C-alpha cells in the first residue's frame, strides 16, 4: 500500500500527461457508450440517458419490420464486400511492383504521385467525380460521344453507383495502402534473395515465392482489420454521392441513421439501428479473426 502510493507520487507526472486523453475518451467514447441504452428506451431530452423510460426491443422490431431494413442492410453489405474484394488486392500488387523498381528516383516519383489522392478531401473527390462524369461537360462523356456512344448521367444511375464508389476509392487509397506493405517488404532478409538467385529464380519468381510469402502476415492482419470494418462504411462519401436517382442503391445503414437521427430527431430509433450495425460488425470482426487463426498462424489476438 505504502509502496503503491510512493510509486504513484513518483510517477504522478505520467498520469498528468495521460489525463487529457483519458478525459476525452471518457467524455466522447465511454459516455456515448453508456448512452446506447436509449436504443431500448423512449428517449426524452429532459429525462436524459438514465431516466428515460425503458421500452425493450420496440425500436429494433420497428427497424426489422420496416420496408427500409433489407434495402439498407443489403446495400451496406454488398457495397462493403465489393470494395473489399476489388480494393484490397490493389495496394498489395502495387507494393510488390514498386519493390521491383531499381531506379530509386522513378520509384519515389510513383510513390509521391500515388499517395497524393489520399490527401484530398471527400468533398473534393466527389466534386471530381461530378466534374468528370457530368453528362453535359464531363470528359468521360465527351470521350464516349466522340466514339459514337450516347452521353450518360453516371451519378444518377443506381446500377453504377457501387462501381463508381469502389473505383474512385481505389484511385484515392491504393497508393497510400501500399505503404504498409512496402515497409514489410523492406524487412525481408537479403539472404532469401541470394538463395533464390542461386536457385535460378527470375524476378517474377522472386516476387511470387519470396516477396509475397514475406508480407503474408501483414496481408492477413490487414485483411482481418478490413473485414472487421465491413459494416463501418464511411458515411461521408456515400452521403456526398447520394442523389434521389441513385438512392435505391446508395442508402446504407449509416446514412439512414443520419437521416432518422439528426434530420428527423428520432434519437432512440436511430441509436437502435446504429447499435444493430455495431454489433453485427463486431461479430464479423471476431469471426474473421478466428478464421484467420485457424487457417493461418496469424491473428489480431
Amino acid at each position: 500500500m505504502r509502496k503503491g502510493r510512493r510509486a504513484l507520487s513518483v510517477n504522478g507526472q505520467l498520469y498528468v500527461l495521460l489525463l487529457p486523453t483519458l478525459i476525452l475518451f471518457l467524455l466522447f467514447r465511454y459516455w456515448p457508450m453508456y448512452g446506447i441504452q436509449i436504443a431500448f428506451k423512449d428517449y426524452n431530452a429532459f429525462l436524459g440517458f438514465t431516466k428515460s423510460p425503458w421500452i425493450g426491443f420496440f425500436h429494433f422490431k420497428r427497424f426489422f419490420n420496416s420496408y427500409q431494413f433489407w434495402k439498407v442492410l443489403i446495400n451496406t453489405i454488398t457495397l462493403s464486400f465489393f470494395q473489399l474484394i476489388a480494393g484490397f488486392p490493389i495496394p498489395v500488387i502495387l507494393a510488390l511492383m514498386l519493390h521491383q523498381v531499381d531506379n530509386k528516383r522513378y520509384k519515389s516519383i510513383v510513390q509521391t504521385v500515388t499517395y497524393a489522392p489520399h490527401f484530398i478531401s471527400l468533398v473534393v473527390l466527389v466534386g471530381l467525380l461530378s466534374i468528370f462524369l457530368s453528362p453535359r461537360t464531363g470528359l468521360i462523356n465527351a470521350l464516349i460521344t466522340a466514339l459514337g456512344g450516347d452521353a450518360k448521367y453516371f451519378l444518377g444511375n443506381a446500377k453504377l453507383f457501387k462501381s463508381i464508389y469502389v473505383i474512385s476509392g481505389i484511385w484515392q487509397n491504393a497508393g497510400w495502402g501500399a505503404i504498409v506493405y512496402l515497409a514489410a517488404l523492406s524487412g525481408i532478409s537479403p539472404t532469401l534473395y541470394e538463395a533464390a538467385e542461386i536457385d535460378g529464380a527470375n524476378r517474377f519468381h522472386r516476387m511470387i515465392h519470396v516477396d509475397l510469402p514475406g508480407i503474408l502476415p501483414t496481408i492477413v492482419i490487414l485483411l482481418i482489420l478490413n473485414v472487421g470494418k465491413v459494416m463501418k462504411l464511411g458515411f461521408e462519401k456515400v452521403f456526398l454521392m447520394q442523389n434521389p436517382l441513385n438512392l435505391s442503391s446508395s442508402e446504407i445503414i449509416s446514412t439512414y441513421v443520419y437521416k432518422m437521427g439528426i434530420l428527423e430527431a428520432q434519437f432512440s430509433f436511430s441509436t437502435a439501428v446504429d447499435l444493430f450495425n455495431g454489433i453485427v460488425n463486431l461479430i464479423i470482426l471476431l469471426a474473421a479473426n478466428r478464421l484467420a487463426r485457424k487457417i493461418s498462424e496469424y491473428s489480431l489476438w
Partner: protein
Amino acid sequence: MSNLGNKSGYDRVFNIVNNAILAVALLLVLYPLYYILIASISDPVSVAEGKVIFLPDKVTFEGYARIFRDNTIILGYANTIVYTVIGVFLGVAFTAGAAFSLSRKELKFRKTILALLTFTMFFQGGLIPTYLVVRKLGMINTMWSFLLPSAVWVYNIFIMRTFFTVSVPEELYEASMIDGCSQFRYFFSILIPLSKAIISVMVLFYGMAVWNMFFQPMIYLTEESKFPLQLILRNIILESNIGGDAVLDADTVLKKIRISELLKFTVIIVSIVPPLVVYPFLQKHFTQGSLSGSVKG
C-alpha cells in the same frame, strides 16, 4: 542460350512491363489533378466544349481573382486554418503525452487503460449518443463540437508509443532519472526533440484530418460564419450554388453559370494545394507512421 542469359532476358522484359504498368498507374492518378489545374486557368466555355485536354485554352486568372474577392470563401479558408492549427496542437500534444505515459512500465493500470483505448477502435457509442453528449456539453455551434471528440486517435497513440519504445533507447530514460530529471523534463526536453520525425507525421495526419473534415462541422455548426472551407466547397462544387459574392456582379445568367463553372476548378485547387505541398517533405517518414513495426510482430 545459357540459363543465366535466359534469366536476365526474362528479367529485362519483366522490368519493362513492370515499369510500364506503373507509368500507366501514375498517369491515371495524375491526369485528373492536372486537368483540374489547367481547367482552373482556362476559359470555362473552352472547358465545357472539351477543348481543354492537354493544355489550358484562352488562359485566364479570373477564377482566382474572384476567389480572393469572395468573403464566404475567404472566411471559410480562415476558419479552416484556425481549426487546423488548434486541432493539430491538441492532437499532437495529447497523443505524445499519452504515448509516453503508456510506454512506461511503471504506469499503474497500464494494461487496463490500453485495453479501454483499444476497445474504442472496434466499438463506439455511435452517431446519436455522441451527438447528444456533445449537445449536453453545450458545444453545439462551437469548434469544440468537432475538434474534441476526434482530437486523439488511438491508432496514433500506438504509432508514437511504438516509436518511443523502439527508437529511443531505454538507457536514456534511466540515465535522466538517475540525474534527477523529472518525467516532465525528460518528456519535454529530451524525448520530444528526439521525436521530430514522428511528430511531423502526426502533424500531417491530424492536420489533414481537420483540414478535410466535413461531416461533423455539418451536423454541429449552425452559423454560416463558422463554416470551414469544406462546407463552402460542397455548396460551390456539388450543389452548383450560383450566387455568392464572387458572382454577384455578373450581369447575365449565362455569365453567372460561366463563372460558377470556373470557380469549381479554382476552389478545388485552392483547397487541395496546402496538404499536397506539405506531404512530399514528410514522405520518407511515412513508413514509421504506418505502424509497420507492430503489424509485423
